[in-house]
């Protein structure tokens, strides 16, 4: 590909790793994927904070909100860091013309949200039944 928007800057292309500059569209797509995961992580942090701050406490379980909110915030933190590492790995693969590494984030996110959802369901049931 010769038509690259923005062009190349030889002074800055050989900084962190070798390989050749990939098609700019792939670079942009990789960046958009990272940004999408970043928004996901931001939403998780906002959601965790809102649960901890705004949700009325579970009757009989005053710590219940933190049990849901804190894992959500930590999950958002983890998604942010992992998405950056995966962006870096993908960019490296693009520069070397190798197949893209498989993203582990969907699995992590699905399992974590399932666990947090189960905890939330258990808390809702416990507070409805009434904790001794």
């Amino acid at each position: 590909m010769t038509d690259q928007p923005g062009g190349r800057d030889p002074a800055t292309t050989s900084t962190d790793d070798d390989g050749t500059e990939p098609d700019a569209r792939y670079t942009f797509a990789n960046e958009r994927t990272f940004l999408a995961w970043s928004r996901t992580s931001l939403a998780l942090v906002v959601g965790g904070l809102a649960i901890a701050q705004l949700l009325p406490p579970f009757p009989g379980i005053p710590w219940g909100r933190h049990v849901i909110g804190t894992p959500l915030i930590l999950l958002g933190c983890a998604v942010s860091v992992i998405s950056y590492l995966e962006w870096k790995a993908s960019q490296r693969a693009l520069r070397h013309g190798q197949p893209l590494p498989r993203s582990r984030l969907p699995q992590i996110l699905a399992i974590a949200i399932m666990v947090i959802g189960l905890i939330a369901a258990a808390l809702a049931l416990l507070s409805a039944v009434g904790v001794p």
Partner: protein
Amino acid sequence: MSPPTGETPAGKEPAGKEPADDIEYADPGLARERTELAWTRTAIGFAALGAAVLRYRPVAGLLVLVLSAVVWRLGRLPGTAGAGAVRDRRLLLITVTTVGVSVVALVLSFLGPGIVPLR
């Protein structure tokens, strides 16, 4: 993209050899535009987070709001294609900020007003 019309099955073309009717091929600037929009959405996400924090910690909230403006601006800087190290630092800024905000959110969720203290 466009559905396969010829004899080549979709997804079988080697990378970088899109059919000529692919609009991306005619105008690669669309990818840049989509990426700018993605930056804008991310900035809006930061702004929402800043507004949420602003209610309980005005200084931290204002800081995040300022950062959301910075993020919006970062997506619009020229020369986004190519400069690997610059891009790296921009994206790292987002990750570092999100981690920092997460720490603030954790502290807030335990120390914020209206919270029943842990016993």
